């Protein structure tokens, strides 16, 4: 092997990739093999599920509030202040506290993850709607559109890029935090990372590779969705 990487590094990554595809011996399971593609898919599916549930819950809460206050033009302190404060929540402390004080399980985990998703979506929805040129809104009103039509047909389409960037930020945080979900009793890909004594160093590295790939898949998926949702007129302008 030539190249800038020393050999042990390649060996580590090789071991991790083997762990992903074929079950390996473990020190503590008494002969039962761990890892392998079936287990990987099972854990990945759980992580995808809780991420989507939490994101949906965050959207259901944050989007209507952001749209309402953005359209009315009030509540800036709430919408923007909450966004800033939300970023300060330490994910590890949130999950650990929730598990210890309220209880483990999918429902509690989903709520905790949604808590992380609400602030960026709320702030970006509010800011996105507020940024729409007031002259454009006045023109729509002059054409006889109702307030709901203005929101639905004028403000919302123009705010899509900003709203989607909030959704992407929320997703990055949710899918990352879903990695430590095993601390709250929900087995995601993070199980490979947190239970090193069961899965070994190969398992830890495999977990890291899989989590990174999953997060990137979400990011690219949402970027594609954003391109589909953005109206053609907006794409002409370089952002």
């Amino acid at each position, binding site marked *: 092997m030539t190249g800038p990487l020393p050999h042990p590094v390649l060996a580590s990554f090789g071991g991790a990739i083997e762990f992903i595809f074929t079950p390996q011996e473990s020190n503590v399971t008494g002969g039962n093999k761990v890892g392998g593609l079936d287990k990987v898919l099972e854990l990945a599916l759980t992580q995808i599920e809780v991420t989507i549930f939490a994101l949906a819950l965050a959207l259901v809460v944050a989007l209507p509030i952001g749209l309402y206050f953005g359209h009315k033009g009030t509540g800036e302190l709430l919408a923007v202040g909450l966004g800033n404060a939300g970023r300060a*929540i*330490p994910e*590890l402390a949130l999950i650990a506290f929730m598990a210890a004080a309220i209880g483990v399980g999918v429902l509690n985990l989903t709520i905790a993850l949604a808590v992380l998703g609400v602030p960026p979506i709320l702030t970006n929805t509010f800011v996105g709607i507020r940024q729409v040129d007031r002259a454009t809104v006045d023109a729509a009103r002059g054409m006889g559109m109702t307030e709901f039509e203005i929101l639905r047909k004028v403000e919302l389409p123009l705010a899509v890029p900003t709203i989607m960037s909030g959704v992407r930020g929320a997703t990055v945080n949710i899918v990352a935090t879903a990695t*430590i979900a095993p601390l709250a009793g929900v087995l995601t890909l993070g199980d490979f990372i947190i239970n090193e004594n069961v899965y070994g160093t190969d398992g830890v*590295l495999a977990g*890291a590779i899989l989590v990174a790939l999953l997060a*990137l898949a979400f990011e690219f998926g949402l970027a594609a969705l954003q391109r589909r949702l953005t109206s053609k007129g907006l794409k002409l302008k370089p952002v």
Partner: protein
Amino acid sequence: MAPWSDLMTSPALLAAVGEVGKGFIQERSSDTLPCQADTSKLFCFDWARENIDRYGTPTLQQLELVVISVLIGFAIAFALSVFAHRHAWARPPLLAGTGILFAIPSIAFFLLLLPITGRGRETAIIALSAYTLQIIYRNVMVGLANVPDSVRDAARGMGLTDRQILWKVELPLATPEIVAGLRIATVSTVAIATLAVFAGGGGLGTQIYGGGNLSFTTSIILAGGIAIAMALLFDVVLLTIQHLITPWRRAAA
């Protein structure tokens, strides 16, 4: 500290109660574990007061992680933006590249680096600075793009070179966006640095995840509370710095 908990453990009170149930009190005062094992209490003031010194080193470690990571992230992102400002072709790849580094969960990033850089602070710093790049880069670019063309033209008309325009006109005018990016990056990094415990990088995460105290809410609240306070403090400091370095905005307001 709460006065009632001072009262509860005052020597006089202990002595008085000790007369009644000596064994019980001795067990309580010599060992703080019973409080730790009592999961019905969300926050145990007595334990917090006796053990607050445990949080000194992790707090300093966390502070170091954040300051070093954000400084490195800022230096790189700032250089990249100045480059991309002059060379438009570099913008799409830089946005995509920093976007990928931003999207990779820090906990995965830490562990992916372990075989290369080993456990420790450096590994955590590399991953955390990589995370901040996109936030800072995007805000610097937005700030520069928001400078009105008329201002640029006026500067050119006064005989300023491109370099002078960038440093004396565009960057000062972009300061609010740049500081906004720094604030977002710093506050998020404080929160995420709690996960550095997974890279052996120390920090407040050690008091949540480290010593098998994952179900001890007093320690979770203390460590989490210190992290949140640190984030808000950074936010206030950065806002103050922005206020000081942009005197013309105060004059306008």
